[in-house]
């Protein structure tokens, strides 16, 4: 009886300590990066330049689409912009920009200065539309396929590694 209790106690603590040890390594900052595979939401977005609506369902017209959330006031967006410009060269990929909580003029200036990689440009002035995409900060980029399935999420500025990965995926 005593021996049994001893073994049970030891096993419990061994399990506990191993888990605690393994958890020391883990990154505690939450990211939705791995939250992929689901369908893109059905959202109406205001075009940046005109008064009409772009609905996300139209994305099924394209092979692969990259949805990029950005703003002129966002430093990391500035950093990743050249990577977006590079990606805009890819024939298999269409880039949709969603200008997030920004002023029209500032956004225009930004694109004039850094170039416009966006096939379609929309805006989300109060930021509420971004919630439908599960976005919680910018820059954030979502890769979607023809079936409106979310393939990849990139939290933070796109790196060269991300660009290579995207190019590889859209080749198929």
């Amino acid at each position: 009886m005593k021996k049994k209790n001893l073994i049970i106690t030891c096993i419990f603590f061994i399990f506990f300590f191993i888990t605690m040890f393994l958890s020391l390594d883990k990154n505690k900052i939450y990211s939705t990066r791995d939250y992929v595979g689901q369908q893109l939401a059905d959202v109406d977005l205001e075009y940046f330049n005109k008064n009409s609506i772009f609905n996300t369902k139209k994305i099924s017209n394209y092979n692969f689409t990259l949805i990029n959330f950005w703003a002129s006031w966002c430093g990391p967006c500035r950093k990743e912009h050249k990577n977006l410009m590079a990606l805009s060269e890819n024939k298999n990929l269409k880039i949709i920009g969603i200008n997030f909580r920004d002023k029209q003029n500032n956004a225009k200036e930004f694109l004039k200065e850094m170039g416009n990689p966006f096939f379609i440009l929309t805006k989300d002035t109060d930021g509420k539309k971004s919630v439908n995409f599960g976005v919680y900060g910018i820059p954030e980029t979502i890769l979607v396929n023809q079936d409106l399935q979310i393939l990849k999420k990139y939290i933070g500025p796109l790196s060269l590694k991300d660009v290579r990965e995207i190019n590889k995926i859209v080749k198929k």
Partner: protein
Amino acid sequence: MLSNLGIIFSSVAFFVSLALIYLSLAELKISNNIISQKIYKISLVQLIFSILSFFVLLLGYIFSDFSMINVFENSHTTKPLFYKISGTWGNHEGSLLLWINILVLFSFLFLFLNKNKNRNFKIYTLIFQNLLITGFLIFLLTNSNPFSPIFPVPNEGMGLNPILQDPALAIHPPLLYVGFVGSSIYFSAALAALVSKVEAKSLATSIKPWVSISWFFQTTGILVGSIWAYYELGWGGYWFWDPVENSSLMPWLLMTALLHSVLVLERKIGLYSWVIVLSILTFTMSVVGTFLVRSGILNSVHTFANDPSRGLFILIFLILMVFSSIFIFFKYAPIEKKNYALFSKEFFILINNWFMVFFLAVVLIGTLYPIFLDTLIGQKISVGPPYYNFILAPFLIPLLFLMTSGPRHSWISSEIKKIFNIILVLSLSLFLIVFFLIKESSLIINLILLFSIYLIVQTFFDFYENFKNKSINLSRIVSHFGFGLLIFFISINHIFSIENNFNAKLGDNKKIEDYNIKFKNLEVLQKKNYKSVIGHFEIINNEKLIKENLKPEIRVYNQPETITYEASIKSGLLSDTYLTMSNISDTDIFNIKFQKKPFMNFIWLSVLLISIGGILNFLKKRIT
């Protein structure tokens, strides 16, 4: 210079601790009935050097000696003196030094003050306690040294975080440390009791004052932490089931169970194994809590800066502590042959232990589950107040009933006391009055109200009885009375709290229930190290025609760049008015949060009463 001095003093303390262990082991070989003077003297030397090293760090902060990295990172020449001093323990390394000092102090005091006739018991306690001290000193000297030098010596420090400059936050850590670090002494005593086969009742007598003291400080420390959260964090809450808060609650639950179990043991009626196990678990849980808070595995508002190497150290220490304790416990397993009388006081205390351990399990599971899930399966979920409230609230009902009914029963006898008496009738009547005034629909909340009233009325009568008989057995009555009040007022507060979030511009008027809130004025000031934006609000209670002026503030600091939101709180007897505001960027619109929180002062007073009961328990021993 201070840096070297500090390292020298703490190193000496380390070697003296080793010497103390060695001498104590040697002492054990001599069969004697007294402890030689050598041990006492060395223990005093240990205390002196330990205090000296803390003093060195303290001086470093007071005189802004930035030659020590720790002072550089956590202090600043312009900090007010009070906060320079409290900054000493407001960081990981400094607080670790405080830990060690408390371990050493309790070791010293136990050696000099404890009157247990079993001298081996005292020596073994000293040995185990000093093993803990040595372990922590190794940690300090090798990984978390507050005296680490930095060269060239910087002119100015980095530590000017405004949130940490607060009186409650200054005393909250030391209070808690005397609490759960103080539990180390009965951890050591429990292991010593097993090895030295000390007589059960004398163990109870030996550790009771330590349990009372640590429990008092732990309760008070938690109270001060909640008060700080309420007044400073700006959300109007006082308990969030945050992992760091839970880390202070879990040892408290164990201490409470232990305190009750010691009562049984000192009357020779049983629960020896419980006392041993609970004593070991309390300090273990304290170290687990420290591990959770300092290792970086938790996501919380309160955590210290992350450093996995600290986590590893504490984890290894914890593993050594736990497996040594398991080994000693099972090898020297206490033999207990006491029988229980059904429905006796000791029976009820046993039931209480069941509940306390259950509450501990709930809080532990809630706190650790996300970590386990994330580590083992990679899925992230959050566990917050809804979980704890849902699971714990219903169990308060039987707990309150047991707290009321249990103490009425006698030791050893099996006689069930009649429940149907005037107190029950009075409580039911009071509850019905309350019920018709409040008209709360939730069954659970009503039952909680009913049984907390029952506890309040019963303890009130107990107090009267005690007063009549001129006996001074007040500690239980005061603490239980406080607990009944606490649950009662928390429930009322929960039912009647009003919260309203709205946007307003200067000059706007907003009507919320019986209140009229007018945004009268906006004041912008430039203070020494921050820009202050103060909103002047006039709040009129239309029913009672009471007018209150509140001034919530937004502070924009530039070093470091932070924005803090200072709540404006008018604490009244019956309720607090609580107002916070924030600015919606790039607009002249402010988001205002208006809250009415009933009976906050009564909630604080209730906890104070609970802790006073603990001190009365400690003092009672002195008197009798």
